[in-house]
């Protein structure tokens, strides 16, 4: 070590000391409080469960690595069970009792929207893990979200159909928030891709058999492909019923099934199914120059080693939410909510699991449609196409 660097080091230490002593900044051991409300049980546990697991795991990891700004993270989390009223109450508790610095949640559009006014009122940045466009459009200064919008998923699927020369499709969707919103977006944008939705069927989130709906789609004149917008076990049953009915048309799923669990549940019926998904499902197939490759590989490995279950896209949303928050806090250099908010808004090129985030004052999602990869199931595994 030469003199120059020693001097520079000393200077840095002195500056730091001076800063620490002078400012009213909180003591370095005071934890940074991250509040999360997720739907860990109930009908949306498909989303909330991997989200919570991811948050718990990475808060531990970050703390093992010395925390943020030299302060540990403290995760306070509640389970809203998928209920918007509970979500509102827990968000309120996080903001008023637990006085968290950043709010992460909710898992669904409904639980998110119920909490938005509270976050706005408390002037605390909030990062949602729900899909609907309405969360960030129009932009609320305090609200951000990590998943791509459902519209992007619909566009990705419809674009691929267009490429294949498909013009008439059958749509089947769940009647839960995810499916409903996806259905609306698909119906809205289909025309731009020269595609006509000629059959439009739905199923309840707890239904156990969709052969009736699929039979109806099959008997509709001129259907060339079928698109299922839904999450949870529903799409797996749709896929099984689809193969069972021996429908010989391309089947598309949404990102709502983007998890290896779908392959387990649907089994051989899933062969040939296409869907838009984040890079998470095919980490090893990504080209080496893809900036997401190491992030995605790391997350998948860590998650599966820790929880002994396969990763899902939804856990990825939580990974991104937490890391965006941490990144913003580091950039802001403090836990001042306004500073965090501004840092979040100016994040550029942040590589996450879901995609590469570049926020802007008018874009609180920050993802490009390209963050969705198009995958196909072949031989019981995911294959990246195009």
């Amino acid at each position: 070590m030469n003199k120059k660097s020693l001097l520079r080091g000393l200077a840095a230490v002195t500056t730091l000391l001076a800063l620490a002593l002078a400012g009213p900044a909180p003591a370095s051991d005071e934890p940074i409080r991250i509040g999360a409300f997720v739907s860990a049980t109930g009908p949306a546990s498909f989303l909330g469960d991997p989200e919570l697991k991811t948050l718990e795991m990475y808060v531990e990891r970050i703390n093992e690595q010395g925390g943020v700004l030299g302060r540990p993270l403290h995760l306070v989390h509640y389970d809203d069970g998928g209920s918007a009223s509970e979500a509102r109450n827990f968000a309120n508790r996080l903001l008023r009792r637990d006085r968290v610095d950043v709010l992460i949640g909710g898992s669904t559009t409904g639980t998110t929207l119920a909490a938005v006014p509270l976050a706005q009122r408390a002037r605390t940045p909030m990062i949602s893990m729900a899909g609907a466009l309405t969360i960030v459009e129009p932009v609320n200064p305090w609200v951000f979200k990590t998943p791509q919008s459902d519209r992007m998923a619909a566009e990705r699927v419809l674009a691929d159909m267009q490429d294949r020369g498909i013009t008439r499709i059958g749509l089947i969707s769940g009647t839960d928030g995810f499916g409903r919103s996806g259905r609306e977006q698909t119906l809205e944008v289909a025309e731009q891709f020269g595609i006509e939705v000629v059959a439009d069927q739905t199923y309840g989130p707890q239904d156990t058999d969709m052969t009736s709906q699929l039979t109806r789609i099959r008997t509709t004149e001129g259907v060339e492909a079928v698109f299922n917008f839904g999450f949870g076990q529903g799409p797996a049953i749709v896929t099984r019923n689809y193969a069972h009915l021996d429908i010989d048309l391309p089947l598309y799923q949404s990102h709502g099934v983007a998890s290896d669990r779908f392959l387990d549940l649907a089994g051989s019926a899933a062969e040939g199914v296409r869907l838009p998904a984040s890079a998470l499902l095919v980490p090893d197939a990504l080209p080496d120059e893809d900036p997401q490759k190491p992030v995605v590989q790391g997350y998948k490995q860590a998650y599966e080693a820790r929880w002994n279950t396969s990763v899902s896209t939804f856990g990825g949303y939580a990974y991104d939410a937490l890391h965006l928050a941490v990144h913003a806090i580091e950039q802001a250099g403090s836990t001042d909510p306004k500073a965090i908010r501004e840092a979040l808004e100016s994040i550029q090129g942040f590589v996450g699991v879901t995609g590469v985030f570049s926020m802007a004052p008018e874009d609180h999602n920050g993802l490009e449609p390209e963050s969705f990869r198009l995958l196909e199931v072949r031989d019981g595994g995911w294959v990246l196409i195009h």
Partner: protein
Amino acid sequence: MFAEFLQYLFSGVTTGAIYALVALGFTLVYNASHVINFAQGEFIMIGGMATLSLLGMGVPMPLAIGLAILLAAVLGALLHQLAIAPARQADVVTLIIITIGASIFLRGLAQVIWGKEYHALPSFSEQESIEVMGAVMYTQSLWILGVTTLLVLALALFFTRTLVGKAILATSMNRQAARLMGVRIQFVVMLAFTLAAILGAVAGAVASPITLTSYDIGIMLGLKGFVAAAIGGLGSGVGAVVGGLLLGIAEAMTAGYISSDYKDAVAFLLILVILLFMPRGLFGSRVAERV
């Protein structure tokens, strides 16, 4: 056209048979104790989930199902001994709330033990589908129908040919008289809970290859089973089966011919209409109230 109709019918009969099995469980408990056991759905979940986790441990399928049924039977008996029997003097509504508490407890327990993910059981037969006159049917549907038929027959024999069965029947007709005849009511009721739990577990095991299973599958199946039992006329075994099939077929036909958005709503509307014309369900007792 006909193939289409047949396809809806197959779909309806399959789900209907599952509802029927659940409804039979409700009927058994109702007969013995006049309680609507809202924890019935959880036994279906336990049947499916326990079979699955035993399979995962390498236990062969028939043994796994057997053990899952045993587990459910024990839990059913415990439910009665620990939760229902101590409160037997309580109002019927109170007992219903106890069973709701029990169902939440069991669901919570399952979630801690087995996690929250959905799972699929393999189909019982190698070949998964067969074609009948232009429509396709799951071979598992045949299993479900077969098992339902067998259980209904077994129950019928049990109630008419065995002493214990007759005791349950007597209790359902007139508690006081049964007690005077030397029937140990509490034992009979416990037996009914155990049998209902067994029925539920069997339903869970045979249905899971089609319905998939998870810790919360019991909510929906339990609700539908209760509805089926009520259309049939609470307390009637035949009614439970007919009610279950009717509900399943109504749902499938509505989804096929009217609107998939409103398939559940139409099914419930049908039930309301049935109840308005037959206030005690299709097969409910018509005996005038004693005053």
